[in-house]
């Protein structure tokens, strides 16, 4: 072995996995474009089902702590998600909850407004395009002449990753901004000192407003709430000051205010700033404070205009919030 070879740092072993996810997070990893070469130069991808052919048995065969870095995206929705999450935890040194779903439950987390039965009834029986007179629904175990077929157990609830395994870091976003991923990745590759465990990386301490280029004043008094298409947006005034609900103030920066730059208010995918446990509750508190009325009836009328507070304020964070799911 030559000197060069000896001094070369050992290559990082990296895994990417998806639980209950849309696939956007995996795509965001691919979005590094030509930088992928740098990634591959620095890391061996030892497990990435969406892109490369691996089997679970390959993962099982790895010694504990074999993988240096795992980006787990997607929420925990069924026993398979949980099983692989636990397996990856065992095999991984740094486990990152990657993206909103792994971080807080994300869009799949909105299923927590329903029960497993309701979901199955709707999907397998009630949708307008379904023809299922015998009302056949997926079973965990099903006996066929050839033997037993097994499907993962569909849970009643969606959970973020940290509700089933210990998570080292959270890298938020739906999906995470690729630049942020690269920064984190390079920091790990270069052996830079990492922040304390269980914290958010790849996002800023400050909320969206800090980066947001729209003009903000103290004039946040709301007489009427508008949906984004109901206003003539000048592209410059703070959404909140136009009566449009924007979760920017309760959402970490780091995404480059992508939505706001596209003239859509922030919907909160980057999750809460440090010290905030429930961004939905914080944002409800702030928004309600802005309501410009003291009369109970007028207040109710104004709040009436927020059609779906739970869906609005917890779009990405329901399973990770204080109440986690609808009580049934």
């Amino acid at each position, binding site marked *: 072995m030559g000197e060069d070879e000896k001094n070369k740092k050992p290559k990082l072993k990296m895994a990417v996995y998806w639980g209950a996810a849309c696939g956007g997070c995996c795509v965001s990893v691919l979005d590094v474009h030509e930088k992928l070469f740098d990634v591959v130069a620095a890391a061996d991808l030892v497990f990435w089902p969406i892109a490369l052919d691996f089997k679970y048995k390959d993962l099982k065969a790895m010694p504990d702590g074999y993988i240096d870095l795992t980006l787990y995206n997607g929420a925990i929705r069924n026993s398979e998600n949980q099983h692989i999450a636990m397996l990856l935890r065992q095999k991984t040194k740094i486990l990152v909850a990657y993206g909103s779903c792994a971080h807080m439950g994300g869009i799949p987390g909105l299923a927590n*407004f329903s029960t497993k039965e309701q979901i199955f009834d709707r999907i397998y029986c009630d949708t307008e395009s379904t023809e299922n007179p015998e009302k056949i629904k997926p079973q965990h175990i099903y006996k066929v002449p050839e033997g037993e077929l097994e499907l993962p157990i569909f849970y009643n*609830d969606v959970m973020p990753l940290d509700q089933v395994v210990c998570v080292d870091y959270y890298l938020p976003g739906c999906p995470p901004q690729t630049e942020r991923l690269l920064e984190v990745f390079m920091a790990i590759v270069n052996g830079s000192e990492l922040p304390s465990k269980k914290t958010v990386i790849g996002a800023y301490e400050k909320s969206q407003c800090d980066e947001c280029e729209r003009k903000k004043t103290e004039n946040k008094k709301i007489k009427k709430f508008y949906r984004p298409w109901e206003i003539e947006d000048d592209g410059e005034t703070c959404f909140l000051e136009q009566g449009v609900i924007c979760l920017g103030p309760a959402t970490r920066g780091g995404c480059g205010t992508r939505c706001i730059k596209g003239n859509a208010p922030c919907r909160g995918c980057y999750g809460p700033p440090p010290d905030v446990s*429930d961004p939905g*509750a*914080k944002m409800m508190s702030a928004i309600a404070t802005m309501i410009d009325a003291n009369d109970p009836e007028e207040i109710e009328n104004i709040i009436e205009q*927020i059609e*779906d507070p739970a869906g609005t304020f917890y779009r990405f964070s329901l399973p990770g*919030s204080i109440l*986690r799911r609808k009580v*049934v």
Partner: protein
Amino acid sequence: MDFKPTIVSFLCNWCSYTGADLAGTSRMKYAPNIRIIRVMCSGRIEPTFILKAFREGADGVLICGCHPGDCHYHEGNYKCLRRFHLIQKYIQQMGINKDRLRLDWVSASEGKQFAELADEMTETIKELGPCEVKNTMEKLDKIC
């Protein structure tokens, strides 16, 4: 066994907490289900606190502040009122009966009103039965 609810109550220091104290000084009797947390102003009461109380097993949450127009800090109680209406809408979506969260105004001289309110709220919650939030969470935790 009788259902003995637990009600977490947030009271502002100047009016409602003093009113609750007055109920005591006047030796009025009321149900032992109310547990009081003192804040300086009802304007300090955050949705987070309310949700946390339910999460920890409260069967009801009672918020009291100064009467409208009488806030020691001018308008804190109106801020509280606005937040209350929004959070009440939210908890209903989350499957929590809206009567489990109540807002009322109690002045420093209304010891009797506070005692009656405590009894009334306890009765309401007894009729509604136990709040299932904590149970649901515990079941959820068992999966893992």
